């Protein structure tokens, strides 16, 4: 089958403003959009720039806007798009560096603000073995351990588009992962940070994050749980 790719192009070394470029190519219905981009880069225009690595949705490199929705290019097959006209644009809310590549640094900066690491200064068990955790306690935060920091959610969030100071869903997801880990002791600190002006209460439950997350993390639910933890102080 033939597909038409309309790709956002911007090279700061050459272009004064972004523009769109259209490419027509042969594709299989089972091709990933990433395969199409590789094809364009290999045989049509080597200057096209995009990030990619694992090619199967686990590294989080190739988040971009495909037909108006944030996705990983390696996790969308042509047949799933339901059209042969494919528009590909960079993520919204982050500075475009070149073509489909955006500057992810502000995203990671927000992530680092929520203390996204295990905090527990108590000594581990004297036998040197693992801290115990029941399967139920482990299950409590399982969903949010899946995050690959792809940025799909945060850049689909209308609050973040408008205000880059908002920590964004990805940061909250990673805070959630620790807040609800029965072994962790940093919940108080994290919740205090998240209760501030740029924290969870900026979430307008726009839900785009949940709809788009390639790891199918129930983000809005996680955010609601964090809000509730802040308001009630209960972490169950």
């Amino acid at each position, binding site marked *: 089958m033939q597909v038409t790719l309309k790709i956002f192009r911007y090279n700061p070394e050459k272009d004064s403003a972004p523009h769109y470029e259209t490419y027509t190519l042969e594709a299989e219905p089972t091709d990933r959009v990433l395969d199409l981009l590789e094809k364009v880069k290999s045989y049509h225009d080597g200057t096209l720039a995009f990030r990619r690595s694992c090619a199967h949705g686990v590294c989080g490199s190739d988040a971009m806007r495909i037909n108006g929705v944030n996705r990983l290019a390696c996790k969308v097959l042509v047949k799933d798009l339901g059209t042969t006209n494919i528009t590909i644009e960079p993520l919204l809310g982050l500075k475009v560096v070149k073509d489909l590549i955006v500057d992810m640094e502000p995203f990671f900066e927000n992530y680092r603000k929520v203390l996204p690491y*295990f905090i527990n200064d108590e000594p581990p068990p004297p036998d040197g073995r693992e801290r115990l955790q029941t399967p139920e306690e482990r299950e409590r935060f399982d969903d949010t351990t899946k995050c690959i920091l792809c940025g799909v959610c945060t850049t689909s969030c209308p609050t973040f588009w408008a205000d880059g100071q908002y920590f964004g869903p990805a940061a909250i997801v990673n805070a959630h992962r620790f807040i609800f880990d029965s*072994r962790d002791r940093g919940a108080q600190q994290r919740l205090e940070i998240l209760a501030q002006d740029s924290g969870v209460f900026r979430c307008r439950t726009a839900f785009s994050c949940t709809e788009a997350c390639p790891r199918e993390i129930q983000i809005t639910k996680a955010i609601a749980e964090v809000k509730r933890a802040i308001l009630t102080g209960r972490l169950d």
Partner: protein
Amino acid sequence: MTMQRHQYDVVIVGAGGAGLMAALYATKKGAKTAVLSKLYPTRSHTGAAQGGIGAALGNLEEDHPEWHTFDTVKGSDYLGDQDAIEFMCYQAPAIVYELEHMGLPFSRTPDGRIAQRPFGGHTNNRTGKPVRRACYAADRTGHMILQTLYQQSIKHNVTFFNEFQVLDLILVNGKVAGVVAIDIATGTIHVFHTKAVVFATGGWGRLWEITSNAYTLTGDGAAILFRRGLPLEDMEFYQFHPTGIYKLGILITEGVRGEGGVLINDKGERFMERYAPTVKDLASRDVVSRAIYIEIKEGRGINGQRYVYLDVRPETVNKYAAIDGRTRPDGSPYVVTAEELLQKLPDIIDFSRTYLGIDPMAEPIPVQPTAHYAMGGIPTNIKAEVLADEKGTVVPGLYAAGETACVSVHGANRLGTNSLLDIVVFGKQAGIHAAEYALGTDFEPLPKDAADFAISQLETLRNSKGSERIADIANEMKRVMMDHVGVFRTEEGLTEALNTIRELKERYKHIHLDDRGKIFNTELLSAWELGNLLDLAEVTTVSALARTESRGAHWREDYPKRDDKNWLKHTLAWKRENGEIELRYKPVVITKYPPKERVY
């Protein structure tokens, strides 16, 4: 070209599991440390690892580091160095607990301990039956390790230079003086003046057409050192994982077979019974990959095609578990439900749905062997110090760890779960020893022309006037490697491959780039990476051609027997000034386990 300089005690190249572990330890030891990675750390391919990390914790049944050691030696087809293997397997429990103390969210047993599952080649040494040794976090173990180590790096304020691709190593008087890197976002060249360097750049699965490896696994570290006159060890040993998704190569973890999945041919037979009567589908990877190839070759691929089925439907699992007499730890018969499998293997089920449109709970998954793991690489000792020759001479200040290194703990064939173990154990060693070395020595003066070689490499590519496209050369290389330097090898095929690779290296000199810019010139860097791959393809083939025996992952149809008399030794390959590859050999360290025939 604009250039910037930096000075650090220790520079770590690569931010996968090995690099991050090294970075954490070097930073904790007080060395001023920088991590350079061409990817954001969390994009590293460690995150793709699924099944588990091996450690004889004995949380579910009796197990001992000694058994782990023996299994690894046997799995390596006796080519692994037994002192190193013993070291790694005895370190394993402590390091897994250490990861847990860093917050790694392992799956749990009902009594709250780290959950473990069986994996290929890991056995109870008394009964020969599979043992539960792989510590796991669902089928996302590598993801959790990578995330946890990155989180700890943030906690300990590790310095990162993200999207910095290292292009060259600077040695002065045989000692480390620095590395040269390009800031991908700006195209600026940076020279890092340093006392110690740890290479942790991962594997090079992109040499093959069907691979489980990321686009970015192009063997940069190994190729850089090779070009700098250092040897590469055991390059002929490259592992093909038996179960990659048909045509795509995406990995389906051995954990699927650990949970009871079986391989089925076109006649509906569980063919592994014939190849490995005791452990069957959980035989080690080389054995299973070859079995699949033989089935395909003998016309028993599904519909005569080049794949077989991996069947993990609950009814199939339960049927064969009953036949095998498999039990739960409490002695009850092993019976699974779709929910349980869904919980233990969520990502596998997701991959099958996304890429194949099938539900593995209702249909079997079409699989074929996929290029997966480099057993060989930069020769190191247990302290992760890089070795310059067969006598064990150390290159002062140079360290390597992870998949790019060859300690050698995997010998001719790696057991599943041993790589994640390898990267944390030896990543830690590299971090500690690099920091200790750096804190006790002075900087070598950095030569003025330090960056010249790297710059000239890039400029040659950028300004090349040819018409060859990178993709054409790469595809041809991948095809010939798949056909002739894959699971089965012959002198004829290897020779043909070598000729083709050398032709491709000629063609590579006449490539054409569309992008001559500086900012995010990923085309330029892909071209540079292709150069690395071609170099590695050549050493791999030359090493394979010389080894006239079959051992582990290196299977020569024309020499189908293991030949301990002539070949119980490691290959070391050098690139000489004139471009020729020179091979030399060094003995295998054998301590407790004399070579025996390997049956599963």
